């Protein structure tokens, strides 16, 4: 409780601070522009240098612009010649225009307020086809510039309730950037894989560039709490985001950082000199998630007494079984508790923002302050976040401009472990969400005394109903914590708490020597601070054995603090000019990046009391570990753009990158260090601008793009290139320095060579839009942890070796089904697909087998990188006769003892007969049992608007991906004294019983619950992700310029055969380990209502 109060106080402080910042600027409310211009059409405001019109030879074109819905002529629509500035005209009252265009010009962009712009290819003659403009209620299809690289951008986040931008990327860019949210916790973000899987062992997620600065995302860093991910994009408020661009091709520009694709995020800048104030408020409720059904008290009691028989205990009387006992036991053990009631709840979320923009001839600014507070449906996981962002553009002289941006965000959250534990040797389960599943339902959450259960005091005595039976298992963690008590006693800012702040300051001075030449320096400093406190209370949690320290402990405290300092400098010289039909733009420069990451970790056991949750060196087994990683890189880059007749476009990139992470003999040797060279070329042909095609007029727009890029992945462990010593404790008391790393002089980036081909087209008078992108790439020099020569004395280090292929496509189509005066209806869908294949592996290996969270992952030449590799099962032996006839056995660790499978055990397929004796089930019998990569993924969306009312519906889907349901494995292993899923009532119990669920056995001696196809499920789903109903109130008051309302429902329903609670999750950021369901909080239905006020 105390912590919450403190939270509120901190929050108040922030808001006061924000308000005082606001006061620092004149709050002059003045008339604002009514029209919603898109960003590009307002460049006029920014560029105050007069546009000089060259005296090109011109010709006259004529035509008419009409409203597509009504066919009525549009007056005041603007026509601008593409690629030539200074040639524009407005339509007359009858919608007609007459425009002088340079003879080389091929197309014009037609735009009008409340309508989406349209590109019109020019015919040879004077008279042009009629232009039909569609309402801005539709998704906009044409941008100002020709999309040479086939980028894909979205910029409509008006009614977004997302905490993390990835939620929007998933909703709006479904097939383009394959996005999977980590879990249902607010703001934990997710994974994005673009263009397939471009790395095996290191980061495979795209480079994030925010306002021109690549921001290190810390994907590989671990946190203390299970189920938590520190997604740095959660530091950006959706209210501040202007535009998100997915850059699939042309990534050579980003050198050794671009191989996984690039996502460019642009935050809002001021567009007008008039001051505009926008206030946004929204609030919502999130419902409890769906659960896997577990057994009730009687079923569980039955399960326990069955399982007890397999422990070897000689006892037969147990208090929890004795319902007639005169003492209090029957009551004590006679409850039917639904533990989920104590752990989950309906959650409230709130989001507030104020945005002020404005400026004058000298300076433009955009200031925003946002505050959001999101409860989690899982108690004690609430998030609050404050964002302040201040973006300015200053013109010091007519040639010297400075961009100055500053932003700060702070997230704090209450936090607990979430999801199933990866094992039980290092402690007892401490995740309330998991405990709510497995804690015995016949126990009561409240303490018992004086003949009754308390109604306020939690039960904090350790479970004891199995004490007598499990006496001979001293180091076996069978007692389960009381999740309700755990939540209470773990609650405090110095116990379980997460805080993250991100500060960024950017200064970008730019000097324009003349119309053609400019020099810009972009300097940015980013600081990311993360603090996490972890505490297991004594009350409510039993003492537990920790194998790592070889002792039983009472409780545990951990803390982790990390700091990432990034300094970035980009110096760039830009030149452009046009020579009649030739236009050339060149820029080049140097990017410097200094990164420093520092983390300190402390832990200790037995704090003595929950009132003293302090970390100190006096704690039992107290230890401090830390890591400093500094790295930097220097890129020399150049980009050349060439455009011929607005039909043929060429973009060439070249980046030469050096990095402290590279070995000194890597790549190209210059100046004593190794450099990577990354060339790329993209060519586009706008076929619709060919006069012969414009003449036909059938195809409104057609662009074909092809390109080839070489880019890299520099996510090399920062010490891989050098040999180093690390101190370890010798005899637990003194430092011992010994080699901990043997450097690889040749270590280098992974190289991805990608060919791409794309089509963008608009047909049927712009009613149908289609965007297609195909890629085919090879990634070589895969970074793998390879064996070092044995003479080094160390096992492994990072090396380059191996190759993989990816190919795939994405296609997005939008159809305007209905375009009437008051009604607009559009339908669209996107489909993404990739196929990943390992071509070779380093070290001459044919396969690599890795273990991730209980799953075995196979990486084998000729197959996808991350397949599930386990045993095939064929049901359960129904009778002893059947089991004996099969004669299958497992070999003991001594290599001699054979233990045969009996009736009730799982029939594992004996696929391999060459290793071990006949009938032996061993690791050679494993095979590929699943593939977590989807066949297709994407989204389906439709929007229907009537006047100013708009209904927007979005589905997202993933088909053909397999899931390892680890959570279900935990709930159906039948080997521990934990409550199990309802399916376990079907377990094999009597000779002759036919069932798919094997017998239960304490500690699972036959390993019936091993990683097998029993736990692999089809994870396909289609989900109604979002339904938004919005209304834009036509208000023309002096004080109120506009008012928008919306209501939104999320995750309304999910169609899936998946047995877990949610088919969408990502329990890791890495490629190996996708598709493993750790049972973390699932996404659930939420309803939000919001209002936006323009002052």
């Amino acid at each position, binding site marked *: 409780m105390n912590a919450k109060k403190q939270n509120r106080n901190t929050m108040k402080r922030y808001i006061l601070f924000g308000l005082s910042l606001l006061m620092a600027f004149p709050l002059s409310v003045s008339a604002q522009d009514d029209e919603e211009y898109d960003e590009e059409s307002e460049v006029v405001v920014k560029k105050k240098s007069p546009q000089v019109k060259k005296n090109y030879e011109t010709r006259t074109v004529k035509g008419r612009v009409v409203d597509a819905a009504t066919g009525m002529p549009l007056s005041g629509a603007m026509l601008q010649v593409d690629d030539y500035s200074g040639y524009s005209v407005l339509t007359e009252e009858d919608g007609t225009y007459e425009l002088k265009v340079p003879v080389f010009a091929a197309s014009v962009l037609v735009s009008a307020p409340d309508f989406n712009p349209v590109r019109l290819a020019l015919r040879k003659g004077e008279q042009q086809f009629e232009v039909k403009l569609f309402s801005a209620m539709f998704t906009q299809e044409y941008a100002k510039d020709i999309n040479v690289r086939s980028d894909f951008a979205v910029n409509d986040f008006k009614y977004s309730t997302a905490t993390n931008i990835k939620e929007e990327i998933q909703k709006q860019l479904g097939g383009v950037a394959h996005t999977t949210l980590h879990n249902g916790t607010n703001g934990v973000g997710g994974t994005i894989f673009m263009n397939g899987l471009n790395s095996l062992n290191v980061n495979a997620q795209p480079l994030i560039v925010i306002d021109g600065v690549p921001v290190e995302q810390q994907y590989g860093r671990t946190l203390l709490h299970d189920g938590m991910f520190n997604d740095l994009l959660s530091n950006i408020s959706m209210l501040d985001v202007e535009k998100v661009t997915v850059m699939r091709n042309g990534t050579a520009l980003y050198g050794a950082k671009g191989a996984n694709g690039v996502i460019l995020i642009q935050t809002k800048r001021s567009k007008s000199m008039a001051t505009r104030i926008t206030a946004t408020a929204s609030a919502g409720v999130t419902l409890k998630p769906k659960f896997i059904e577990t057994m009730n008290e009687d079923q569980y009691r039955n399960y326990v007494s069955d399982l007890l028989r397999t422990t070897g205990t000689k006892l037969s009387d147990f208090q929890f079984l004795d319902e007639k006992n005169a003492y209090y036991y029957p009551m004590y053990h006679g409850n039917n508790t639904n533990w989920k009631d104590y752990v989950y709840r309906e959650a409230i979320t709130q989001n507030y923002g104020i945005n002020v923009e404005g400026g004058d001839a000298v300076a433009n600014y955009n200031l925003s302050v946002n505050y959001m507070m999101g409860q989690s449906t899982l108690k004690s996981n609430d998030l609050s976040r404050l964002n302040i962002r201040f973006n300015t553009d200053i013109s010091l002289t007519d040639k*010297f401009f400075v961009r100055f941006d500053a932003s700060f965000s702070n997230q704090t959250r209450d936090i607990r472990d979430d999801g199933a534990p990866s094992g039980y040797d290092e402690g007892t389960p401490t995740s309330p969400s998991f405990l709510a599943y497995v804690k015995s339902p016949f126990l009561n959450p409240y303490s018992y005394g004086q003949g009754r259960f308390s109604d306020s005091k939690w039960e904090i005595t350790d479970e004891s109903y199995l004490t007598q039976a499990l006496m001979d298992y*001293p180091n076996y963690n069978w007692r389960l914590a009381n999740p309700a008590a755990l939540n209470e006693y773990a609650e405090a800012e110095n116990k379980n708490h997460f805080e993250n702040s991100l500060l960024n300051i950017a200064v970008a001075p730019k000097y324009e020597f003349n119309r053609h030449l400019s020099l810009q320096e972009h300097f940015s400093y980013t600081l990311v601070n993360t603090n996490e406190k972890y505490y297991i209370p004594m009350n409510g949690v039993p003492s537990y054995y920790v194998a790592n320290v070889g002792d039983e402990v009472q409780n545990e405290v951990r803390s982790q603090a990390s700091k990432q300092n990034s300094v970035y400098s980009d110096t760039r010289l830009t030149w452009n000019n046009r020579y009649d039909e030739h236009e050339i733009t060149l820029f080049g420069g140097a990017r410097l990046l200094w990164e420093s990451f520092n983390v300190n970790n402390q832990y200790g056991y037995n704090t003595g009391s929950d009132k003293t949750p302090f970390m100190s060196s006096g704690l039992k087994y107290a230890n401090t570990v830390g890591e400093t990683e500094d790295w930097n890189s220097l890129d020399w880059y150049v980009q050349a753009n060439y455009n011929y007749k607005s039909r043929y476009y060429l973009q060439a990139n070249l980046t030469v990158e050096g990095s402290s992470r590279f070995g000194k003999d890597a790549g190209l040797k210059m*100046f004593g260090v190794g450099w990577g060279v990354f060339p790329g070329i993209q060519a586009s042909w706008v076929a619709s601008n060919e006069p012969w095609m414009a003449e036909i007029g059938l195809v409104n727009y057609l662009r074909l793009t092809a390109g080839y890029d070489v880019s890299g992945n520099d996510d090399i462990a920062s010490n891989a290139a*050098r040999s180093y010593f*690390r101190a370890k404790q010798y005899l637990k008391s003194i430092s011992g320095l010994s080699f901990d790393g043997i450097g690889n002089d*040749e270590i280098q980036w992974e190289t991805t060579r990608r060919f791409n081909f794309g089509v963008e087209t608009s047909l049927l008078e712009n009613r149908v839009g289609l965007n297609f992108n195909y890629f085919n790439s090879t990634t070589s020099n895969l970074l793998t942890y390879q064996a070092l020569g044995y003479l080094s*004395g160390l096992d492994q280090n990072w090396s380059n070796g191996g190759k993989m292929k990816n190919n795939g496509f994405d296609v997005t189509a939008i159809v305007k089904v209905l375009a009437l005066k008051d009604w607009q209806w559009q339908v669209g869908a996107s489909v993404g697909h990739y196929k990943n294949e390992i071509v070779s592996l380093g070290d001459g290996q044919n396969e690599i087998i890795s273990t991730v969270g209980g799953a075995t992952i196979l990486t084998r030449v000729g197959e996808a990188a991350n397949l599930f590799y386990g045993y095939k099962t064929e049901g359960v032996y129904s009778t002893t006769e059947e089991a004996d006839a099969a004669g299958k056995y497992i070999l003991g660790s001594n290599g001699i003892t054979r233990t045969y499978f009996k009736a009730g055990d799982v029939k594992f397929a004996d696929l391999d007969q060459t290793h071990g004796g006949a009938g032996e089930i061993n690791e050679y019998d494993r095979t590929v049992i699943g593939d977590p990569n989807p066949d297709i993924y994407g989204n389906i969306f439709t929007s229907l608007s009537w006047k100013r009312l708009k209904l927007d519906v979005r589905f997202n889907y993933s088909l053909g991906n397999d899931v390892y349901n680890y959570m279900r494995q935990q709930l159906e292993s039948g080997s521990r004294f934990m409550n199990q899923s309802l399916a376990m009532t079907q377990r094999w119990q009597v000779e002759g019983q036919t069932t798919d669920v094997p017998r239960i056995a304490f500690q699972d001696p036959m390993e019936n619950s091993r990683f097998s196809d029993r736990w692999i499920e089809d994870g396909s789903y289609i989900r109604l992700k979002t339904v938004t109903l919005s209304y834009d109130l036509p208000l023309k008051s002096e004080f109120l310029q506009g008012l928008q309302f919306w209501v939104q429902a999320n995750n309304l329903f999910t169609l899936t055969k998946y047995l877990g609670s949610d088919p969408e999750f990502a329990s890791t950021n890495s490629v190996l380990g996708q598709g493993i369901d750790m049972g973390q909080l699932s996404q659930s239905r939420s309803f939000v209502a919001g209002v936006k006020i323009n002052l």
Partner: protein
Amino acid sequence: MKRLSILIFSFFNLLIFTTSCQDFFEQESDHIIFADKDHLNNAVDTIYSVTGIMDKMQLLADRTILLGELRGDLVSVTSYASANVRQIANFNIDDNNIYNSPRDYYAVINNCNYFIAKADTALKNNRNEYIFMREWAAVKAFRAWTYLQLALNYGEVRYVTSPILTKQDADREEEYPLLNIQQLCLELINDLKPLVPEYAAEYPSYGTIGGVDTHLSFFPIYILLGELNLWAGNYREAALNYYNYINTRNGTNSYYATGIAAASWGNQQQTTWDSYSYNTGLYNWTSYTTQGEAITQIAISQEYDSVPNPRYNQLRSLFNSRDDNDYHVSITPSVRLQEISAWQDYCMVTGNEGDLSRDTIIVPKGLEHHMDGDLRLRVGWYEVEDYPGKNNERLTTQTIRKFSTRNVSIWRRQMVYLRMAEALNRAGYPRFAYQILETGVNNQVLKDSVLSYYCTAADSAFINQFNFPNQLYALEGSGYDATIQGMHSRGSGESRANPHYRFPTFVTGDTLAQQMDSVECMILTEGALEFSYEGHRFYDLMRMALRRNDPGFLADRVYARRGINHAGTVKGEIQADLYDKKNWYLKWNGKLGIGK
């Protein structure tokens, strides 16, 4: 303004060019030390590097014992033994066996090589003494011992003496010479010889670390030279080096006698044969004293700290019934060991000298609990029958007293004496060797029982280099407090009086060679009785078999592990043909090991 922007641009470019590219890309860290920095010129890092090497040696401790013992004939594995352990006993150690990893030896060697190459040995203190020379010598000894272990197990080594600092260097293994045991020993002898006598007895003194006396953490160079020479076949050199250790153990003018600890029948007037006594000193080697048994051990960890690591620390659980193995041991004394023990005759002399009742008694055969032979077996191996285990399983528990601590004993005093005996025997002085077994040696014994047999000037000159002053190396009844005894007396009573324990004589052709072969077998037997479970046996068999050029000497004994009459069964289990020397050695991934 134009100037300003040019200034900014040039500033950043200046940054790039003023610092050279190497410097720019070279990073520092608080948590690790880069190998290209000179950190071995300060005392703290130098000492921590020595402890770092000791830390790496911990991984070798278990396998030093297991590889040396399990392949011999003195122990058998039980059905509870893991595949890792069983494979050793059956000579079919695969590449994945956790004890088959040359890499772990090179982890020690590479750290040693770095230390030897980089330690600032020229640094002197204000008393003009070299500061790090003792460390330097100690590290050379670490390296030599590690190389010797590697060679004994694999039959060959890649001999690397400079640190490997890059992956590329490590991959060029073919460029390093491949040495066999003999070649390696010669190299190492040359490496270590310059260090004696200056650094022979001087070790870095680090006091107690984690409750373990660091005196015991080092490898005395004289013993190493003794071992290397013994393997190389330089027997005189070997004997002298062992002697030098004895003679200088506690500095000059010191003595290091065998001691009189023994397992013995407690009652001198024995009528019933059911009790025995033993001196606790017999199996208590963990502390360092000037006359203590312990010489070198690999310290593992404190007793109260119980963090298990599957790759070390396992010996106690393998040999002893404990909670953590559910009282199931993996290794037990073999039938062969019981036979060897039973073949010995325990001899008691009752009554005082001159008494009428004075008598020499040989303990009768057929006693229970292995008490009818050498008592060391009974004392070191303790069984409890019908013990209630987990889930009321009734079982027989076993305690091997030599594994009462986590620290792993490598060398001890009796070993030095026995190896000296082996060297002397092969140097042509079997009577000298024999006296070490029977009476213990001092100058009087040498004069009475040795010198008279070796009359040439050269022999006398050689023997006279061994000086064991009678008052310091005192026999019982010599007028001094006894400090020595024949090693055989440690378990078989009064060997001097034992009519069955005599220097071998031959009816026909009593040649020196025959004497030497016979005494060598007595030494081998003594080693079995004294050093069972300690990981010496296989190497003893190997050394003698190689020396005799008789693989059967090893093979027949190993096949007789389950008793002389069960050689066939054992042959079936082992499969590998031990008459072929190649099969004695481990192989690893086709990269190391004779017969790879």
